């Protein structure tokens, strides 16, 4: 990237808080009852991104492959927690499997891009590996969460049909396959929509960032294309792996379907009907 960014001084950053005030005013005047949560979330976002900025600067300065892998591990861990929290109607903890899948996808796709396509040197160059890894994780996380939610919901809706198939001799995989397909479709369709609208409806995040940093837009475009394609692959592989590794949870050792009624406390976000977190992964 070329230098071209106009730096934002602390007083300028403080000035940006008028945006928060504007949003808060609307929430208070309209009595939405979410002003307190918004103020807290805005503060969190502010601090988190600020810390991220310094943490990444430190990481880039450190220039250590091991540290880069450690950061990817940490990011996979947090992404897995987000998925595990969102998917409710499955017995047992799905965290270890989601973590394994996400970390595997993150390594596979990130290093395919940085090693084979961009060819960065050294192999762990954090300026490339960390943001790309983040985009892979953010998208797979959302894709996997949507796919798993749909998988178990669809299996519950098909309970009678699946029991009928199993009674005729179907294996759990055969009985679950229509739900697995429906789940993968649900996980992948947002991606198809993004691919179809990108460049016309919106300028994707990574390209915007590069343009702001002074890169010529025609040079930024190939990067963005690589990212978009990489993200769709990550999404597809991640959802396929996660659904295939977890559908069996709803069947017992003899291959019979187990109905499951979760009795779970609503999460903070569900309780206050806040929107699910958007993934800010820059495309």
């Amino acid at each position, binding site marked *: 990237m070329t230098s071209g960014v106009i730096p934002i001084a602390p007083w300028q950053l403080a000035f940006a808080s008028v945006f928060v005030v504007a949003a808060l005013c609307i929430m208070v005047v309209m009595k939405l009852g979410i002003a307190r949560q918004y103020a807290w979330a805005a503060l969190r976002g502010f601090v988190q991104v600020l810390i991220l900025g310094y943490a990444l600067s430190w990481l880039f300065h450190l220039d250590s492959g091991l540290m880069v892998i450690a950061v990817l591990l940490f990011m996979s861990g947090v992404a897995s927690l987000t998925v595990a929290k969102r998917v409710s109607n499955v017995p047992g903890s799905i965290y270890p499997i989601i973590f394994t899948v996400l970390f595997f996808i993150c390594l596979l796709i990130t290093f395919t891009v940085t090693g084979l396509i961009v060819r960065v040197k050294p192999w762990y160059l954090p300026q490339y590996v960390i943001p790309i890894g983040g985009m892979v994780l953010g998208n797979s996380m959302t894709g996997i969460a949507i796919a798993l939610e749909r998988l178990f919901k669809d299996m519950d809706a098909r309970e*009678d*049909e699946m*029991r*009928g*198939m*199993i*009674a*005729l*001799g*179907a*294996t759990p995989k*055969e009985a679950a396959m229509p739900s697995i397909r429906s789940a993968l479709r649900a996980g992948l369709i947002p991606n198809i929509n993004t691919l179809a609208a990108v460049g016309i409806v919106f300028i994707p995040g990574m390209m915007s960032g590069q343009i702001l940093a002074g890169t010529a837009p025609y040079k930024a475009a190939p990067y963005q294309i690589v990212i978009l394609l990489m993200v769709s692959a990550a999404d597809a592989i991640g959802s396929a792996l996660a659904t295939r590794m977890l559908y069996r949870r709803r069947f*017992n*050792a*003899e*291959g*019979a*379907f187990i109905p499951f009624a979760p009795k779970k406390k609503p999460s903070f976000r569900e309780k206050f009907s806040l929107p699910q977190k958007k993934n800010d992964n820059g495309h």
Partner: protein
Amino acid sequence: MFECEHISVELVGDKGAFRAVSDVSVCAQECEIVDIVGPSGAGKSTFLHALALLIERTSGTLKLDDKGAESFSPQEWRKLVALVQQKPVLLEGTIEDNLRFPWSLKLYKNIQPPSAAELDALMNRAGLHDIALTRLVSQLSVGQQARVAFMRTLITHPRILLLDEVDAALDAQSTRFIGELTSDFAREGGIVLRIRHKLDDNRAAKRLVFNAGVAHLEMIERGETRD
């Protein structure tokens, strides 16, 4: 011979775990029909599902011709000990798609699919001779759908039929045809265990009477009927 010994099933309900079926045993010979009766919630359906390995049993052994259920794969067992659900669950498509559905499963890979003549003969026996195999199942009446679901199990040639009140919500004609198909199945050497609420049709030899999870066996005298 089909033997079920000391079958117990524990389920988890709103108020915690409870014994839905408690130490129930029954044994049936070839050509025999066993009626299963008792009030709602007495454990009849749970018992049948446990026999087809569709609900996990807490204890008890299942044997077919002295071979334990463990010596079969669960899929093989369910093909031999076939449960027909109360609510017919058909897949989207035609009658023929549904009748041939089992042959889309791995289990039937090496089993010869039924011939067209076989399907026609079965349709006749089920009283569906005036309906084409290409008719969409969504266009059938509930009774006709139930007959298709019943035939779909019959055509896989099970040894034992487990009928979970298949005629509970059916018209008289469908009930009659299903009754006749059931008797034919038993006459040809099959074993039938069926849950019934309606009047007995005097075909059964034994009656398993359920009450609150426990059951006792009664022999049925010829000529006796019971509601």
